Each structure stands twice: as structure tokens, then as C-alpha cells.
């Protein structure tokens, strides 16, 4: 199970599924199971998706590619919405944030 905070609705489930297509290229694991996504919110009135997320390290060389991929994947699943990212490092990412599925994947790798 992931620890992402969402409004428990279909839209968030679809958005999370879309974000599971975004991979951390070094680790080979998707960013949801890696624990990089903290919160997803849909603002129906402004047609915006807010994604609060982090990176494994603040100056991650792949950071820009990952955030671009997040925006593109959300746009692809919700063409009528605008995706906005809030990149936070408080709390910083830690290994405890990796989901059970993620750990199993890394154990097999």
C-alpha cells in the first residue's frame, strides 16, 4: 500500500495509476511505490491537480525529468486539468517511505 494522501475518489485512483508510469530511472521503481508522491488534490472549480511530491535527494540530477514526467502523465489522464507540482523536502524522502510492493520489487531486483 502507498501512503499518498488523496481524496478517496475515482479521480485520485486514476491519477495514482497514471503516476505509477513515472519511473525513477536509477532505481527502476515507479515514484508512487518509491514514496515520492505525498499528496494529490483535485480542485474542481479551477480545474487543477495539485501534486505534492519530493525527490530522493534535493539536487537529484534526474529531478527535472521526473517532475516533467509527472506533469505529462497527469495531463495525459486528465486533459481538461492543469497539473501543478509542489516540490517539498520537508519531510525529506527516506527508505521508510518505500511501499511494501516497492520493497518486494527491490528485493527481487
Amino acid at each position, binding site marked *: 500500500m502507498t501512503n499518498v494522501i488523496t481524496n478517496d475518489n475515482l479521480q485520485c485512483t486514476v491519477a495514482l495509476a497514471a503516476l505509477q508510469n*513515472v519511473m525513477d*530511472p*536509477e*532505481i*527502476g521503481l515507479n515514484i508512487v511505490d518509491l514514496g515520492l508522491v*505525498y*499528496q494529490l488534490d483535485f480542485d474542481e472549480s479551477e480545474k487543477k491537480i495539485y501534486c*505534492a511530491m*519530493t*525527490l*530522493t*535527494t*534535493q*539536487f*537529484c*540530477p*534526474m*529531478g*527535472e*525529468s*521526473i*517532475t*516533467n*514526467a*509527472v*506533469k*505529462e*502523465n497527469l495531463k*495525459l489522464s486528465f486533459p481538461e486539468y492543469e497539473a*501543478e*507540482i*509542489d*516540490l*517539498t*523536502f*520537508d*519531510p525529506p524522502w527516506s*527508505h521508510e517511505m*518505500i511501499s511494501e510492493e516497492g*520493497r518486494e520489487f*527491490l*528485493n*527481487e*531486483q
Partner: protein
Amino acid sequence: MFSTTGNTEATKTTSWKVVLPFYGYAAIAFLIATILLLFSASDITSHYFLPHTLAIIHIMALGWGTMMILGASHQLVPVLIEGKLYSNKLAYASFTFAAIGIPLLVNGFYVFNMGLHTQCGGILIILSVIAYLINLAASMVKSKQENVHAFFIFTAALWLLATAIVGLLLLYNFTEPLLPKGSLNYLPVHAHIGIVGWFLLLVMGVGSRLIPMFLISKYNNTRQLWWIYGLINGGLLSFVYIFLYTDSKSLLSIPLLAVAASIVLFGDFCFKAYQQRIRKKVDEQMKVSLLSVLMMLLPVIFLVIIITLLILSPKENVSLIITYGFIIFFGWITAIILGMTFKTLPFIVWNKVYHHLAGKGKTPNPKDLFSKKVFKWMSVAYILGFVMFTAGILFYSAIVLQIAAALLLLTSLLYNWNVIKLLMHKPVSL
């Protein structure tokens, strides 16, 4: 809960334009060094202070080791100090000065002419290090974080500057006596502040951050890293003092013990990081890098033997000293570069080529941008070449040295093949 920041963009990483020239230059330098080694293999055992040997050592130390480390460092400094690189222009300046200075210096050694051209080469290398130091210092000042890795890198760069200045002094001392003794007498100081102060300190500072990161390991021990930092710097300072101001050979065991202890502590750090890794499978590049950590112990063992023999008899054992130098430059330093190149370069190239395509379609994995088969053959050729060459020096076997040098040339050709494959990569959509 988390804090909102209003940050919508990830911090930009160092441009590939800054980093790739260093990687390309280093790859060519490695190739040239192995070609020269092939032509000089049979007479390398006669003495370490020979024109061709000096040329090969300086291509390996500066063109290969230092250029590669400077390139990777410009890319990794933001990750290590948690701040942006201060200036791309200073990075270009650092590259340009070194890129011109190294061939001038090496050519001077090769033809054994320590005149103006060679001295200009030395001055340009110093300018390159100064540009790097300013860039590093300014990046660290701008970064809000203070961490042990930043201290390792900055101190290592200071030792590099000291190495280059001492090297230039020794060059001048050939043509005009500036020092009380001949240049040959000071070679151990020049060599060890470079090997221990620059290479060892930097590799440990960077490795202690990258090895747990690449293994996805929970292990971290800042206190242990500070001990390592203190032991290396304390050991090196005491070595310089003992070497310059006393005649005692037995006192040299003090710095040797300090550096050996730091290596043991670093090995323990890496082993614990390995034990506590979350990702179970370790890729080939990491295996080669971890092997290089073990290889750090080899020069220490040789140094113990060399110092013990020096205490027993004042006559130098030349083949042991040559082996010692060989296992540092072609062993430990080369092994870590062979492994780490293919842990870092694929990501730099991937960022260059696919950065704008992220999320817009399936893109290849960075790990698939180079040939794993070629990497494997390169590793086999390297290990065989390294072991055979070491045996060849110790047993004075010209034929073994020649075969081993050919294997090391093959290693550099395969390495270059993969580097060129990476650098020439064009976007493909899957």
C-alpha cells in the same frame, strides 16, 4: 504532514556541456596511456624515474584520474553539498587549462625536457585547480547545508593544489636549483599528497555518499566519516613532516598506520552499507566499484613491505616501488573509474537526450544506453591485464608484461567503445 514550499520546479542540475568534455578527455587519455604502456612494457621494470614511465604516470594521474574525477565532481557536487554549482564558466576554464596543460607536461616528461613548455604545462594545471577550487568554495558558501562530504571534497582539492605546486617546484628545480636537494628526493612527498590527499580523500568523500545511494542502503555514519577524514589528513600531515624534517624510516609507520586505519574504516562503512541495502541485486558497475574499495588495501600492503625493507636496508627495492605505483594508478583508481563511469555517464547522456521527452512516451532506460556485454568483456580484460602486469613486474617477465599491456590496451579500447556509444546516442522512442 509535509510543508508546502511553492516550489514547482526541480533544481536544475549541472549542464551536460560542462561535464561531458571531462569524460571524453579522460577516455582518450586512458587509451593513450595504455598505448604508451604497450610500447614501454618491457623496460618499465628498470626504474620508476624514467621519461616514459613519468609520462605514463602523469597521463594516468592527470589525464585519466583527475580529469574524470573533475568531470564527475562538477556533476555530483550539487548532490554532495546540496547546493547548485556556482559557475559553469569556471568549470569550462578548469577544463581548458587542464586540457592544454596536461599534454604539455606529459610531452616534456616523454622527451625529458623540463624546459619552458613543460613548466607552462605545470602552470596551466595549477590554474585549472584554482578555477575548480574557487568554483567549489563559492558553491559551498552558497549552499545552506554543511556536510562531511563537502569537507572531504574541498580538502581533497586543496591537496591537489598542493600536489600541483610541489610538482611545479620540482620541475623548476631541474633547471634551476630552488630546493636544498635534487627533485628526485622530493618525489615521495609529491606522489603521496596527490595519491592520498587528492585521490583517496576525494574517492572516500564521494564514495561514502554514492555507494549507499546506489545500493539504496539505510546505512549512514557521519561520525565514522569524520574519523576517516581526521586519520587521512593527520596521517598525511605527519608524513610530510617526518619525511622532510627527520631521517627516521621507522617513524613513517605512523602515517602508514593512520591511512591504513582510514581504509579499514572506509571498507567497514561500505560493507555495512552493502549489508543494509534495500535493493538486493548489485549491478556489474557497482561490483567493479566495490572491488576497487578492496583494492585500496593492496597498496597499503606493498607500502608496509617497502618501508620494512627500507628500515632493514637503505637500498630501495625498485620493482616493489613500481608495483606499488602500478597498483594505485592502473589498479585502484582505474577500477573505480571503470565502474563509476557507467553509473554516472548514462544518466548524464539520458538527461541530455531525453530530458524534454520525459513522460511523453516510453524512453530507454539509462542503463540500456551502453553495451553490458562490452562492459563485461572490458572487466575481464582489465582484471586479467592488471593481475598479469603486476606479476610481470614482480617476476621481471617481459613476455608477461607485453601480454598484460595488450590486455590493458584492449580494456581501454572497450571502455572507449562504450563511452563513444554513449556520447553519440541519438533519441529513440520505444
